[in-house]
C-alpha cells in the first residue's frame, strides 16, 4: 500500500497500481521518486543492483530480444508505455535545453533519437548526464535521477523510435563462464581499462574509467553502445553469450579480486609496490640501522 502511494506521486494512479500490483518495481527512498531533478538519488534500482536477479524490472520479454539473447542470459527489458509521459516531463526539464525538444539534438548536443533506451540508461544512471561542460569527457558521479526516473527518461526517448537502438538489458550471470570472460576481457578491454580494471589516462586528455563500480546492466550497455571514446561492440563482434561472460568477469572478479596475498595496494601494480618496498621496507630497515648504530 505504501509503495502504491509513493508511485502515485509520479505516475497516473491506474498505471501505478498496475505496476505495483505486478510487483515489478521496488524503489526505496520514497520522497525521491517524487522530487524531481534536485533530489540526489542514492539508490540504484534493482536493475543496477549488485546481483542481477530475476525479480528485476519491467517485463523482460521482447520486442528487440531474440531467443539467442535470452538463452545467453541477456534479456532486453521492455519499458511500460506509462513511463513515457513522466519521462517527457523530466526530459523537458533537464535534458531538452541541450538535446532539444523531441531529443533531436542541437548544436550543443547530439540527436538521441534511435539510440535506444540502453544508451539513455547508461548515461543517466552513471550520473554522466546531465553534463556541465560538454567539451570535457563526462565522468561518473552520483546520478541526478533515481532508478525509476532514469527508466522514464529512457522510455520517453525510446518512444520516438520503438524497437530501434540498444535496449536496456537485464543480465543473468548464472550461466556465465568466467574463464571465457577473462580471456575476452584481456583481448578486448584491458588495452584501455587495464587488466585490473582500474582505468587509466589515454591520449589527448581522454581516459578509460575505472570498472570497479559499474553494474552488470551498465557494463553490457557500455559494450553495446560504446559511450564516449569507447568503441562499441555489436553482437557481430561479441556475441551475447560472450558479452555475458565479460560482464560476469568484470562483476565477479575485477570488482571483487582475489587478494590472496594481503592488501591489494589498489591494483596499481609496481608503482604502488615500489613505494611500499622503498618507503616501508628499505625505510623501515634504515630506521632499524639508525636504532642499533651510533648516531654521532
Amino acid at each position: 500500500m505504501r509503495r502504491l502511494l509513493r508511485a502515485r506521486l509520479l505516475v497516473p494512479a491506474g498505471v501505478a497500481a498496475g505496476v505495483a500490483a505486478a510487483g515489478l518495481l521496488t524503489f526505496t527512498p520514497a520522497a525521491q521518486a517524487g522530487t524531481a531533478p534536485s533530489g540526489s538519488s542514492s539508490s540504484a534500482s534493482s536493475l543496477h543492483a549488485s546481483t542481477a536477479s530475476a525479480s528485476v524490472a519491467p517485463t523482460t520479454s521482447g520486442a528487440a530480444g531474440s531467443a539467442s539473447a535470452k538463452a545467453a542470459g541477456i534479456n532486453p527489458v521492455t519499458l511500460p508505455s506509462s513511463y513515457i509521459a513522466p519521462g517527457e516531463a523530466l526530459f523537458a526539464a533537464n535534458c531538452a535545453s541541450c538535446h532539444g525538444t523531441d531529443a533531436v539534438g542541437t548544436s550543443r548536443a547530439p540527436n538521441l533519437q534511435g539510440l535506444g533506451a540502453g544508451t539513455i540508461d547508461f548515461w543517466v544512471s552513471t550520473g554522466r548526464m546531465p553534463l556541465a561542460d560538454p567539451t570535457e569527457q563526462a565522468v561518473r558521479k552520483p546520478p541526478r535521477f533515481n532508478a525509476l526516473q532514469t527508466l522514464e527518461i529512457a522510455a520517453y526517448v525510446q518512444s520516438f523510435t520503438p524497437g530501434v537502438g540498444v535496449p536496456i538489458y537485464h543480465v543473468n550471470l548464472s550461466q556465465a563462464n568466467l574463464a571465457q570472460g577473462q580471456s575476452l576481457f584481456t583481448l578486448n578491454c584491458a588495452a584501455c581499462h587495464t587488466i585490473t580494471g582500474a582505468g587509466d589516462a589515454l591520449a589527448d586528455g581522454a581516459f578509460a574509467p575505472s570498472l570497479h563500480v559499474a553494474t552488470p546492466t551498465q557494463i553490457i550497455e557500455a559494450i553495446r553502445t560504446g559511450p564516449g571514446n569507447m568503441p562499441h561492440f555489436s553482437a557481430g563482434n561479441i556475441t551475447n553469450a560472450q558479452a555475458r561472460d565479460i560482464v560476469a568477469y568484470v562483476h565477479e572478479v575485477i570488482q571483487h579480486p582475489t587478494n590472496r596475498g594481503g592488501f591489494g595496494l589498489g591494483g596499481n601494480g609496481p608503482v604502488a609496490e615500489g613505494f611500499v618496498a622503498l618507503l616501508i621496507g628499505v625505510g623501515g630497515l634504515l630506521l632499524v640501522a639508525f636504532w642499533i648504530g651510533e648516531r654521532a
Partner: protein
Amino acid sequence: MIDKSLRWVDDRLGVAKGGRTFLDKIFPDHWSFMLGEIALYSFVVLLATGVFLTLYYVPSAKEVIYHGSYLPLRGQRVSEAYASTIGLSFDVKSGLLMRQAHHWAADIFLGSIAVHMARVFFTGAFRKPRELNWVVGVSMLLLGILNGFLGYSLPDDLVSGTGIRIAYSILESIPIVGSYIAFFLFGGNYPGNGIIIPRFFIIHVLIIPAIIVGLLAAHLGLLVKQKHTQFPGKGRTEHNVVGSPMFPTFMAKTTGFMFMTTATIFLLAGFAQINPIWQFGPYQPYQISYAVQPDWYMGWLDGALRIMPSWEFVGWGHTWPLEVFLPAVLFPGIVFNLFFAWPFLEAKLTKDRAYHNLLDRPRDRPKRTAAGASVFMLLFMVFCASSTDVLANFFNVPLQSVLITFRIIVIVLPILTFFVTYQICKELQGYEAAGKRKHPVVVTLTPEGEYRTTEMAPHPGDGHEEIEPIPVPTFINLVPPELATGSGVRRVMR
C-alpha cells in the same frame, strides 16, 4: 671441549690465525655503515626463498590446460611456467608467502644497494685504495637489476610478457648487431618458440646468482683486507680504525639486523600483496594490458623510453630507431659507465692520488656532492616518468602535458639541483655548528633588573663520545696480549 675441538681443527687446517684476524675485525659503529648489510641479508633471503620456488616452478613455455583452484582461469590454455606459478600461489602450502617474500626481498635488495651506494659515494669511501671494491659493487647492482628483470619475467603473465617484448625491441634497436643479438638470445624472431623462459630461468637461478655470490665474496674479502673507512673524529686517524670488534659486539648487532631484515621482508610478504599474476592472466603475444610498469629498479629505463620523442631515421638501407636506442641502450650505458669510472674520473679531476681511510662530510666536497645529487635527481625524475599514465589519471591532466612536463624537468631539474646543492654545501661549510643543536641559553633576571645569559653545556650525544668499554667475555682467552685492551672498543693499526 670447545677449546679442544678448535685446537683439533687448527692443528689440521691452521685457521686460527686467519680466524683471529676475522674475529678481531673492527667495525665502525656509525649507523650508516650498516646499509650494505640490508642488501646482504635480503640476498640471503632471496637465495633461500628462491630455492623453495625452484622446487615447484616449471620453466617451460609448453601450453597446458589450467586445472588448478583459481576459478577464472580454469580451462584456459596457459604455459606451464604460468600454471606452476599460479599453483605456487594457490595450491602449494606457504607457496604464496615464499613467492611474495622473494619478490619483496628483490625490491628491498636493490633499494638497499642504492642507499648503500649513495652513502659510499657521498662520503668518498670509493677513493684510493677502494676503487676496485666500488667497481665490484656497481657490477653487483647491474647484475641485480638484470636478474630482477629476468625473475619478474619468469611467471609468463600478461604484464611481464609485455616486458619481455620491450626487452626484445630494445635489443633489436642496437645498430648493426641488434637483430643478431636478439635472434641469438631468443633463438629466432619474437616470441621465439618458447625457449626464452627456460633460458631466462637458467640465467636467473644459476648464472647470475653464481656471479653475484663470487662478487659478494670479493666485496667482503676486500672489506676485511682493506679495513673499514671511518668518519673523522676524536682519536680517529688515517692509520687506525675505531669501532667494535667482529666478535662479540658486532656479531650480536649484525645477527639482530639479519633477523630484522628477514622479519621486515616476511611481514611485507604476509600482509602486502605483490605481483598478483592470477589477476593479470597468462601472456599471449597478441594481448596487452594498458598501464604496465616494470618493478621500481627498472622504472628509470621505462621512464626514459616513455618520454623520448620519436626520433627515427632511415639511411644506408636501415631504419635507425633512435627513440629506443638512445633512452634504453645509450642512456643506461652512459649512466653505468659513469658509475664504474667515477673513482678514476674523480682522481683525475682532483689530482688526489693519496690513500683515504677517513671519510668526507658531503658538504666538504661540494662539487662531488652536487654532481651526485644532480645524477640522482636525473635518475629519480626519469624513474617518476615511468608513471606518466598514473600521474595523468590521478591528477586528471592530459597525458601529453605530463609527458612534455617530464621532458623539460629531466633536463632542467638536474642542472638546477647541481647549483643549489653546491650553494647549500658552501653555506654549510661557512657555518661551523651546522647540523648540531644549539646550546640552551638560560636568561636570568638579577635583583637589580639586569638580564644575564648563561650558555649551558651541550646536549648529551651532540659532541663526540667514546663508547663505554665493554669487558670481553672471559671464555675468549685467545686474545694476543698486544690486542687485549680489555675493552669492547678497539683500535687497530692498519
